[in-house]
């Protein structure tokens, strides 16, 4: 998570911080993952949030203390901005092998398959065995709820978030066949 936060911040630093966006917006972008994590545990109390935000001098586009409604909408826009940036970053081709100077490669670096084999059990045969949880009769791990990228709200209960994530998939599929753009690129 920490690595991802650093990566996100690095991407975001490349964006010109337009005056059209509020200080609250940029704060939410900077603290995106922390807010998502907090919202996963508890429903966001936007009234309390605004009181704290005002103390930090986080204002709306007019320089005023944000209202609960304003903060909720700003958070929606911040999530979209971060998701769009991450999607753009993920769409970039992977770094070309050999693009790192040999002197910068860590001493304990190994190619991926060997690292995997060496980390499981004793001997290479252990790596080829299925994990213990895949044994017949073992209880299956319940699937984690998927979180929607754009539709819905982090305040929604998990099953509602799952429904919105399903709908996003359906739109992606429908628009891909129709030659359109995926959900994440709308607007």
């Amino acid at each position: 998570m920490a690595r991802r936060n650093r990566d996100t911040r690095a991407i975001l630093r490349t964006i010109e911080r337009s005056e059209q966006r509020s200080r609250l917006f940029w704060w939410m972008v900077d603290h995106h993952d922390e807010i998502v994590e907090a919202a996963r545990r508890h429903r966001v109390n936007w009234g309390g949030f605004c009181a704290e935000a005002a103390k930090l001098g986080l204002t709306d586009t007019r320089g005023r203390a944000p209202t609960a409604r304003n903060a909720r909408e700003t958070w929606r826009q911040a999530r979209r901005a971060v998701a769009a940036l991450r999607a753009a970053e993920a769409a970039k081709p992977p770094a070309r092998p050999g693009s790192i100077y040999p002197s910068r490669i860590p001493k304990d670096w190994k190619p991926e398959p060997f690292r995997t084999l060496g980390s499981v059990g004793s001997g290479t045969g252990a790596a080829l065995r299925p994990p213990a949880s895949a044994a017949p009769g073992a209880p299956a791990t319940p699937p984690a709820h998927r979180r929607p990228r754009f539709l819905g709200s982090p305040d929604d209960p998990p099953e509602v978030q799952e429904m919105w994530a399903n709908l996003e998939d359906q739109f992606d599929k429908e628009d891909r066949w129709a030659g359109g753009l995926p959900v994440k690129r709308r607007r």
Partner: protein
Amino acid sequence: MRDGEMAGDRPPIVALGLGRQRTGKTTLLNTMVQYFRGLGNPLRVWNADQQNRSHTISLFFRDAEDVPGGGIEDAKVWIEARLEDLIRHRYDAVLDVGGGATGFSRLVQEVPLLEAVEANSVRIVGLFCVGPERADLDYLEQFAEVDQFMPASSVIVLNAGLVLSGRTAIGAFGSVIEHPVVKRASSRGACVALLPALTCMPQVTDRGLTFEEAMNGVAPEGGEPLSLFDRARVNRWWSRDVPEFFGKLPHEWLPFPRTTGRVGATESSVEGIV
């Protein structure tokens, strides 16, 4: 045991096609009946659409039961009788209520229909069909917020077949999805789902063919079969898109056959959902 009557533990399901005219209620119910009958549930078909004559669900199913008479009051009395019969004999059915002011909307205004039917262990599934126009939500708004008719098992079906050519579905439905009526409904447990488009749907329905017949190149009496490419389109839609669409909806809201459940599901897992 009467036709369509089924024994079993799960409650009978009556699926209602709701929405303004030309939003795809009949198409959805036609698809649903073909799909679940294909899986082995002989669910009954009730047609209370008194406005539509050229594209009614009765054209697709010879055993569909039609409302006698043309008045709203006729339809209301007929629907009441059908529901009483379903409660008594425990089978599954779909009801096409038609659009606009209908016998069903009159019934909803007169009696607390949901409470009355669901108190008898019958699951009402509301299928609210909407296109990309804002006015398509009026019906949902009227039922859900004015008449207080919003079944716990409700699906807001976004009909991608109504999206104009050249537009993306997400672009077309963006304002619908973000409308407060939809948000409120989803927060109360309604499911929102996208019915995938079949671009040659009129070519299938105008021929009075089932989807299986259409994709297999069957010709209607005195007519031509679908073109090669349209057959391929129907094949993809019927074999892949439709199962995926129903697969995204809550299993217990759908009239899967009681004896076998969802394809691939075990008997015990089906029983556990009731």
